[in-house]
């Protein structure tokens, strides 16, 4: 067992690095998109509801199916994986971002408006800091979900820890199956723990 880890260190470390890369790029793009959509939803309230509805439908599509659906459009590989992962994250992020911002006490918002703060000033100086907890929760859920679903992305040649797992399954190599699972699962669990600590 440990033999595999030492002998194939270069392989799994490369897969691990790929995995981290996929997660980082996905998160960056997801947060950018979700922030833009959230700002839109702050101006037009219905937009938030519609977006959450749409993305909740997308979120309910099994990941393997969604990866397959995108292959004719964007082909095999990491790009397709990242697009799908960004789409999945929108539900987790938007739901937390929009509800978090909307849950700020209306009296506080009325006072802020009445004092002559602009909409952007209220968003940045009042709503964002007060919704910090919800924003962070959304982020943590998105990170953990991305780490998990990115494993499956190996099925469309996106690389990452899933590739070890799928290799193992194809060749019936128990070591690869176990290590792929342990690394992917461990990555998700450890990250979740760290982020939960940070949240407090």
């Amino acid at each position: 067992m440990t033999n595999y880890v030492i002998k194939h260190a270069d392989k799994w470390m490369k897969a691990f690095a790929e995995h981290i890369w996929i997660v980082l790029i996905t998160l960056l793009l997801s947060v950018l998109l979700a922030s833009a959509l959230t700002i839109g939803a702050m101006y037009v309230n219905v937009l938030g509801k519609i977006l959450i509805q749409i993305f909740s439908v997308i979120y309910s599509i099994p990941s393997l199916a969604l990866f397959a659906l995108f292959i004719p459009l964007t082909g095999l590989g990491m790009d397709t994986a990242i697009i799908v992962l960004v789409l999945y994250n929108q539900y987790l992020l938007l739901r937390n971002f929009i509800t978090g911002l909307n849950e700020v006490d209306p009296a506080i918002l009325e006072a802020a408006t009445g004092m002559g703060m602009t909409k952007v000033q209220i968003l940045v100086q009042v709503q964002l800091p007060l919704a910090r907890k919800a924003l962070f929760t959304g982020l943590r859920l998105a990170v953990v979900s991305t780490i998990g679903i990115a494993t499956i992305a190996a099925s469309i040649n996106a690389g990452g820890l899933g590739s070890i797992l799928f290799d193992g399954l194809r060749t019936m190599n128990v070591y690869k199956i176990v290590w792929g699972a342990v690394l992917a699962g461990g990555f998700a669990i450890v990250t979740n723990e760290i982020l939960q600590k940070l949240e407090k």
Partner: protein
Amino acid sequence: MKAIEFQNISKRFANATMNAVNQVNLSIEEGEFITILGSSGCGKTTLLKMINRLYEPDEGRIILFGEDISTVDVVKLRRRIGYVIQQVGLFPHMTVAENIATVPKLLKWEKEKIEERSRELLQLVGLDAEEYRNRYPAQLSGGQQQRVGLARALAINPKIMLLDEPFGAIDAINRMKLQDELLKIHGGLKKTFLFVTHDINEAFKLGNRVIVMNEGKICQFDTPRGIKEHPADEFVASLIESTREQKEFWEELK
């Protein structure tokens, strides 16, 4: 000089069958302390919120110091008007000093000037600056929170203060204290105060003139003595009568 004029102001909310405020005309001189008295749903808060354009009237014009407010940039207008609400609405993530500094900061005042002003204001509203400036709103009592709310609204020295039932959620003893202090603050500053309340004692104690409202209309706008001696209609008369009944109740308790 006239501070505030309402010219034929009407406001109807979407899906309402009646005007919340109906054909209101009134004129307020600079430096007056006006209280607006009425039961809930009479339109008194709507009337107030049209002055800082949280609501827009459907008809009529509101003139502040000779200027039609619909022609002024709404953010600039609001920064010229102090606004205090019953729920206070302090920012819970900011200290007392930071709360008071909100608008001065938006206007890019210098740090020293902001600090000096916040000390001055805390003293004005009866809070020890050293003790309270670094506290968070959650560490204050309801009465103290509203004192900070008042200080925050006064920060950039607005000529007009709008107060929407500011003491409505405060216990009787502290409310009396705050009323007295508000009168003192008004007397010292020569500002125009508009104070909404449903408490007739509060309205008659604070206002040099009282607006009595019912069903979106102004029933009477006069000095407390004028209203007491010559109630304009049955509604006003019944309000006065209610205080007599209260007085009798207390006498009987003796």
